[in-house]
């Protein structure tokens, strides 16, 4: 049996990113003048746990950087350093760097070593300057950790420099204590991803360490299980070290070893008192610790113990796989493995490593579930919906009293199904705040960089969206907000001169609107200058010199690829690749985007999105005996044409007049090669549908059938892409209907009329 630690990587990355988010939020909340101790603790714990986790998995670059960060934070935590604006900025930068490193490792790409070492240097410089900045009580363990931090500076390979051995010989400052540590790992310590070498190395950085190894349990070579640990250690650590610091070193091995820490010598009594204090504070957790510490299933351990160990909350949530590494279990229980007497350790219970859901103690009872499971659930529910529709249809054809009862039952079933479907859809939905929360930091940085003053307003953050939609809405929103700040909001001087407040407002809002989600980004900046846009478009030949465009049409020009009216492109936005990509992204989500503006007053971008990607509200139409679905979101109106309203324009084919415009008529039967019920326009129906940017067409169909919610099935999985068709669905009678893609149809029509 060999261990593959990579199975735990995903959980580590996920949790680390989350932890970094909470660290960032805490940093932004931190009041420099009167810093909240809890916030500082939160920040410290994040650095500490990421350090431990990355060390476990051998991500030495991350571990090393985080170690320096942790050192600085420790100073902050123990009050030997005070928070300054410079420090806060440095810490925020560290968050960015850590995110980048994690991402690089996750994607198996190289880390930007220069950036990392530069920032690490800044961190250590700040730590080193501590003594000049604050003249107060001698800092515990600080001198020992500083050289250790530089000794573990990022190197290309993960090899431990010989310097760490030297770190053990540092002179302890006068207030030194000597500790006797008994460290007896259980055999499965290795299997849990722990390495005593790493822990002893950390200890050696706290003070001067003497090691005595006990190999009595080491069997003959042939009998050795290479994955089991048979060695134990007696250690003496001398230095200005607190017991809690020592315990922290063994955090990750919680439950996988026997650990005794005893003070030795004159300072014994003082240290014991401190230890007692610490131990009793941990009593509530300790009572459950012995039992839980011995359980092999880390998940069982973290559940009861976590409730008592508030401080470790950010990392309390463990991965869904119950065979969680000690990495997950350890920080959740701060109680020592053996609280009272160092008697024989509780016998290990062989708890089967079955799939056990892990409670995330931070909020009230939620479970982390993999996206695949939810997708499966949604598929099954989708199938149920189809089956129920089939049954309903069959039921409607039956006669008799039994048939009546059956129909009543099926109607009930349909109501149940709708509820089930909605509930399952909601499972995948998350509040848009997940995305909105990115913005305070981004806006602050950007405003600083561009010398603007921005007030960010967030409303409707609790509006829920499907997870997949949520994931893809972030980038477009970022681009829009950047645009607002960069091009929309004027500089404070200009604003004052214009009689506005010096600070501009950027407002992000989300709400449910008519079965869809509406997300708005608005600002009270200068608005869009139609004349400039028109001029630019004319410059590029996108618009003829004599064309007359409505306001809407002018704003639409912005969505053309390569278009940008920025005077000079900053590196933030204005590269001109933005808006067309934004629109494409929104379109892929099945939504649409429009611009509104008031010159001098501000602009507003409105994004409309469907609630979910898997289901669409559609209008069924029949053409030549085939049924097609037109997404309701695209439909403007359905009507019967009067021959008088139809004309033929040269170069544009058949058109009809609608609300003051001429729209092309798309004969679906021609496009699809079908035999329609009628070819006479006023004997059929026309569905006015809208594609991108207010482009409208009239779809000529035989009849309108019902409206219903349909489950989107992929046509491309087995067949391929068809222009004008976005997917397929299964109707109540089991047959397949194609779902139309209006923009695609518009393209297909344009190509044909151009031909």
């Amino acid at each position, binding site marked *: 049996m060999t261990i593959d630690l990579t199975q735990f990587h995903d959980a580590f990355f996920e949790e680390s990113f989350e932890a970094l988010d909470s660290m960032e939020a805490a940093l932004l909340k931190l009041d420099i003048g009167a810093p909240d101790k809890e916030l500082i603790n939160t920040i410290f714990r994040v650095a500490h746990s990421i350090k431990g986790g990355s060390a476990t998995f051998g991500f030495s670059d991350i571990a090393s950087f985080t170690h320096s960060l942790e050192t600085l934070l420790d100073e902050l935590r123990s009050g030997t350093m005070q928070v300054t604006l410079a420090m806060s900025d440095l810490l925020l930068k560290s968050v960015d760097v850590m995110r980048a490193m994690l991402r690089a490792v996750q994607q198996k790409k190289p880390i930007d070593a220069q950036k990392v070492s530069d920032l690490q240097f800044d961190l250590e410089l700040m730590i080193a300057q501590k003594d000049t900045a604050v003249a107060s009580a001698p800092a515990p363990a600080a001198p020992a950790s500083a050289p250790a931090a530089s000794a573990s500076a990022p190197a290309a390979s993960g090899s431990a420099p010989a310097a760490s051995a030297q770190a053990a010989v540092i002179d302890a400052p006068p207030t030194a204590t000597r500790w006797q540590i008994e460290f007896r790992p259980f055999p499965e310590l290795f299997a849990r991803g722990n390495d005593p070498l790493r822990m002893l190395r950390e200890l050696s950085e706290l003070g001067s360490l003497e090691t005595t190894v006990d190999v009595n349990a080491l069997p003959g070579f042939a009998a050795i299980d290479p994955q089991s640990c048979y060695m134990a250690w007696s250690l003496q650590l001398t230095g200005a070290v607190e017991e809690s610091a020592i315990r922290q070193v063994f955090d990750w091995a919680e439950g996988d070893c026997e650990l005794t820490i005893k003070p030795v010598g004159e300072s014994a009594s003082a240290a014991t008192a401190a230890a007692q204090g610490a131990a009793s504070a941990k009593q509530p957790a300790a009572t459950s610790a012995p039992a839980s510490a011995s359980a092999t299933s880390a998940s069982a351990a973290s559940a009861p113990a976590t409730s008592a160990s508030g401080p470790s909350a950010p990392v309390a949530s463990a991965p869904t796989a119950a065979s969680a590494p000690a990495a997950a279990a350890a920080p959740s229980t701060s109680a020592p493995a053996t609280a009272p007497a160092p008697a024989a350790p509780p016998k290990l219970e062989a708890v089967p490593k079955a799939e056990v859901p892990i409670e995330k103690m931070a909020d009230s009872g939620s479970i982390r579930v993999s996206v695949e499971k939810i997708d499966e659930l949604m598929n099954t529910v989708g199938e149920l919906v189809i089956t129920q529709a089939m049954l309903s249809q069959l039921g409607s054809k039956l006669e008799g009293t039994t048939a009546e009862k059956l129909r009543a039952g099926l109607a009930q079933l349909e109501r149940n199904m709708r509820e089930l479907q909605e509930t399952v859809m909601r499972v995948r939905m998350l509040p848009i705040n997940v995305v909105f929360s990115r913005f305070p930091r981004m806006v602050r940085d950007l405003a600083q960089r561009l010398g603007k003053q921005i007030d960010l307003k967030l409303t409707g953050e609790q509006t829920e969206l499907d997870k997949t939609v949520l994931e893809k809405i972030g980038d477009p929103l970022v681009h829009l907000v950047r645009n607002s700040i960069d091009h929309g909001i004027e500089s404070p001087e200009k604003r004052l001169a214009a009689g506005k407040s010096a600070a501009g407002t950027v407002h992000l809002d989300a709400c449910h609107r008519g079965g869809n989600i509406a997300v708005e980004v608005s600002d009270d900046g200068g608005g869009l200058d139609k004349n400039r846009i028109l001029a630019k478009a004319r410059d590029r030949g996108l618009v003829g010199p004599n064309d007359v465009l409505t306001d809407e049409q002018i704003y639409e020009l912005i969505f053309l690829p390569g278009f940008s009216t920025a005077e000079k492109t900053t590196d933030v936005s204005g590269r001109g690749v933005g808006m067309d990509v934004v629109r494409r992204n929104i379109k892929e989500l099945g939504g649409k985007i429009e611009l509104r503006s008031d010159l001098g007053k501000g602009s507003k971008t409105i994004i409309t999105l469907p609630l979910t990607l898997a289901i669409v509200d559609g209008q069924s139409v029949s053409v030549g005996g085939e049924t097609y679905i037109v997404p309701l979101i695209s439909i403007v109106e359905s009507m019967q044409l009067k021959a008088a309203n139809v004309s033929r324009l040269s170069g544009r084919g058949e058109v009809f007049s609608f609300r003051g415009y001429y729209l092309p008529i798309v004969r679906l039967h021609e496009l*699809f090669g079908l035999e329609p019920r009628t070819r006479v326009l006023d004997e059929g129906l026309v569905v006015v549908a809208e594609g991108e940017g207010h482009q409208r067409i009239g779809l000529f169909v035989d009849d309108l059938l019902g409206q219903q919610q349909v489950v989107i*099935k992929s046509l491309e*999985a*087995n067949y391929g892409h*068809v222009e004008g068709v976005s997917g397929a669905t299964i109707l109540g009678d089991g047959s*397949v209907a*194609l779902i139309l893609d209006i923009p695609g149809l518009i393209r297909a029509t344009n190509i044909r009329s151009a031909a």
Partner: protein
Amino acid sequence: MSSNAPVKKTGDASHQVLTFVLGNETYGVDILRVQEIRGWSAVTKIPHAPPHVLGVLNLRGSIVPIVDLRMRFTLDRAEYTAVTVIIVVSVVSAAGRRDFGVVVDGVSDVVDVDTEEVKAAPDLGPKGSTDFIRGLVPVSDRMVVLLDIDRLIGTDLTSLTGDAAVAAA
């Protein structure tokens, strides 16, 4: 549709083949690729599809294209009757696994084919390449043409034409 006749036992190097009838010939496909067999039902047409792709059907919730093999082999078109059968097969390619339904006249037995008994396919002359024919094997009193389903249907249905040679692998 005939029932399963008992399969004859042969040597180790054998595999099972589902045989079916099309026109005057009997063909065979690897049983491991067969997902299911069903009767004919009306398909939904796909715009601008090649002529031998009749449309799509709902198969256990998936949208599966239905291919008329007669057209593929440039035989005369037949009527689709109550006994016309669709064999749903999996085609494997670099793009992954795709399911298709092929319309045939009728399904015959599942037989064990001894690899040693398979003879090479003869040159079919002007009709085109025979990449999709694995070989010929005698079964009872006739020759079964063994088909390579991956090559027969290929990966890109949307670009195949009826009398084309093998699609890109």
